């Protein structure tokens, strides 16, 4: 991992922008907390996405000006948001019917680990002193049509987050479709991780060195 500092990957914003390019016009999208929230800043020209927040709003808009927030208009991260024209409010059973019933097109989530089989761990370290908290992550991965993960390729200490099998408690099994990291865009396929695109200036070998499972090269 000594070359870590030499490899200059995408920034968080560039990762979010790259992911946004892959969302079709008119998609209903749920963005998780953290880097996934950045995706909303990069809607490509000519497209419109409708954002779902599982606490009960379709048509979520950007954060209001500082001081203009309404404590009863918040997102799943409990931050103040706005409602776009055409928005709808609903209760939790309806909200999770949208999720579990396969009505949402895309869920974008962060990750602690993703396995080569598409297993995701993103809710708990499993440490005995941790306060377990799961929220809606398990419902999202069980029900939404496509699951994209957006994450740094490695942890702060340089450990690979893309692994053969997750050591942290799972959020769901075999549910991740695609990963957007700072180094590459990678599909989860029946054969394992397959590189779709490398960050400019990053070569395949350096991504493989930072990945805990075999990588397949991009299909020509």
């Amino acid at each position, binding site marked *: 991992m000594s070359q870590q500092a030499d490899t200059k990957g995408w920034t968080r914003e560039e990762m979010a922008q790259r992911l946004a390019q892959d969302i079709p016009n008119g998609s209903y999208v749920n963005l998780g907390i953290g880097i996934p929230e950045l995706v909303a800043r990069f809607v490509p020209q000519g497209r419109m996405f409708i954002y779902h*927040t*599982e*606490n*009960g*709003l379709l048509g979520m808009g950007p954060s209001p000006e500082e001081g203009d927030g*309404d*404590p*009863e*208009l*918040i997102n799943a991260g*409990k931050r103040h948001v706005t*409602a776009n024209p055409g928005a709808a*409010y*609903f*209760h*939790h*059973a309806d*909200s*999770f019917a949208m*999720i*579990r019933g396969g009505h949402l097109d895309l869920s974008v989530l962060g990750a602690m680990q993703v396995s080569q089989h598409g*297993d995701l761990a993103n809710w*708990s370290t*499993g440490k005995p*002193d941790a*306060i*377990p*908290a*799961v*929220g*809606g*992550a*398990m*419902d999202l991965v*069980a*029900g939404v049509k496509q699951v994209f993960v957006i994450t740094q390729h490695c942890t702060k200490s340089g450990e690979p987050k893309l692994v053969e099998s997750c050591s942290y*408690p*799972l*959020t*769901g*099994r075999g549910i991740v479709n695609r990963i957007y990291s700072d180094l590459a865009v990678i599909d989860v396929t029946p054969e394992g991780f397959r590189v779709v695109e490398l960050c400019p200036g990053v070569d395949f070998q350096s991504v493989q060195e930072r990945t805990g499972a075999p990588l397949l090269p991009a299909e020509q």
Partner: protein
Amino acid sequence: MIDKRVVSAAEAVADIADGSSIMIGGFGEAGSPIELIHALIDQGASDLTVISNNTGSGQVGLAALLKERRVSKVICSFPKTLNSTVFPELYREGFTELELVPQGTLAERIRAGGAGVPAFYTPTAVGTPLGEGKESREFDGREYLLEYGLTADYTLIKGLVADIHGNVLYNKTARNFAPIMASAADVTIVQATTVVEPGVIDPETVVTPGIFVDRVLEVAEPAHESELIAAGECYP
């Protein structure tokens, strides 16, 4: 003549006994019925089971009820929130038990409980620690877990407008768990900013029909958790 109004928060919660199970609406501070919770603290009932998405923030509202050691068990999806220190301490000490439920499963268990459905199958949590030990069954080649409907003795929720028959409208994302919780308890108590006569609310727009509601309390200027915390308040 039907009039479900009560005159005070104290009257609204007066009969809640020790050992009761209570659903409390709210997602974070949005929809948290703080005045009813504070009245419950004053009332003194203990050994409560609380069903709520979170465990409160600071030392007001739900967090204050926990801090007063009135809650022996919480059933929730996300017992961690910014400024949430009360629950972690009680949990580590072993005073308050936690049943962690995925958010959508929690919602559906409450919906089912209110709808007279004793159990259902869900794909959520299959293959995870929260699915371990649960009865499972395959439908069309996919595995699902059996989950049980959830009911309670009481529900405490916050609305924007209610009429004296108990029909309720909510404010934005403060709606969250309230309509399903209203249906799932023996006694549902609503605090609303405005209480009106029958006929004022357009029947086409009613969110919670009055049949699910037993008591209506007007709280004209409800407090917000974040504002109380910013002001450094602790309850009681």
